């Protein structure tokens, strides 16, 4: 698979039934304060142009076929940025009747259709700050170090 280009990254925004919070913050990345364009990031309207797919929303049943079509069409994409709680883990409605529940559940469905799981950066937040998304993009490009790690604490058995 093609490696992600560090100087030029075109992103395609894919909404799978999100509340708009993340979508606006995605747009906000391109506003003057954050100005993602200075980092060579460009928002494109066609999945064919995309290097990275910015994925938001918990995947509603109504939206599922559309989302699959869009992912199938983005042949050139090399990474997915799962933005927000909904995309990362289904969010507050992860288990309701009309929600598939986050991008990992979507990948399970895609796997059966023979589409491999693309490298995915999870960006938690509800919604994440635009800077957090930029950080996620830099992580996908390999220009930032991952700060978040799994933490496990095990209480040691001590005498009472």
């Amino acid at each position, binding site marked *: 698979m093609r490696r992600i280009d560090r100087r030029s990254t075109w992103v395609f925004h894919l909404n799978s039934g999100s509340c708009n919070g993340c979508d606006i913050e995605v747009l906000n990345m391109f506003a*003057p*304060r*954050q*100005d993602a364009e*200075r*980092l060579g990031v460009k928002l494109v309207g066609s999945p064919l142009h995309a290097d990275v797919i910015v994925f938001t929303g918990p995947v509603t049943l109504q939206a599922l076929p559309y989302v699959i079509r869009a992912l199938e069409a983005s042949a050139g994409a090399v990474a997915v940025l799962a933005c927000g*709680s909904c995309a*990362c*883990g*289904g*969010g*507050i409605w*992860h*288990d309701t009747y009309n929600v598939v529940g*986050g991008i*990992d559940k979507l990948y399970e469905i895609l796997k059966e259709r023979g589409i491999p799981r693309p*490298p*995915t*950066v*999870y*960006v*938690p*937040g*509800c919604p*994440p*700050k635009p*800077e*957090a*998304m*930029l*950080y*996620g993009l*830099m*992580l996908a490009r390999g*220009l*930032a170090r*991952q*700060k*978040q*790690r*799994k*933490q*496990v*604490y*095990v*209480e040691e*058995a001590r005498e*009472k």
Partner: protein
Amino acid sequence: MVASRIAFISEIKKKPVTEQYPYKPISVPEGFRGKPVIDPEKCIGCGACVNACPPGALSIYDEGNYRVVKLFLGRCIFCGRCQDVCPMGAVRLTDMFELASLSRDDLVQEVRLLLEKCSLCGKAFATRREVRHVEEKLDPEQRWLAHLCPRCRALVSAKMIGYARGCNR
């Protein structure tokens, strides 16, 4: 008409408002609701946060000798209810927002606490820390009650009340 266009163009003289973010860190205001962190030394595994958490990002379950409090950041909505309800002040929302990670596993925090077995029936019912926490609140002569599971405790106290009332049955 031309004047307004020129006014727009003349903005070019001003300094850009863009920050230098990935290269220079940005500051967040005090009280920012960032990544929640459980202080594993303080947590007693009571589950108050799990009950309060709207999305169910926090979960609690028993595994072997341990009670596991699990926080999955990928589902967290950063509301801070866990911080509000924690009796020990163990959960705290920090100012960390750079939480992006390449694997879903990295978004997990687990606190495994040892379970206490009921001194009567031998069933595991609460963490040792929780028992100790309850113990401290009780009078010294009642402390043994804290080591009973809720079922046994109910039985025992029912009996005790019976004795107190002078009922022999």
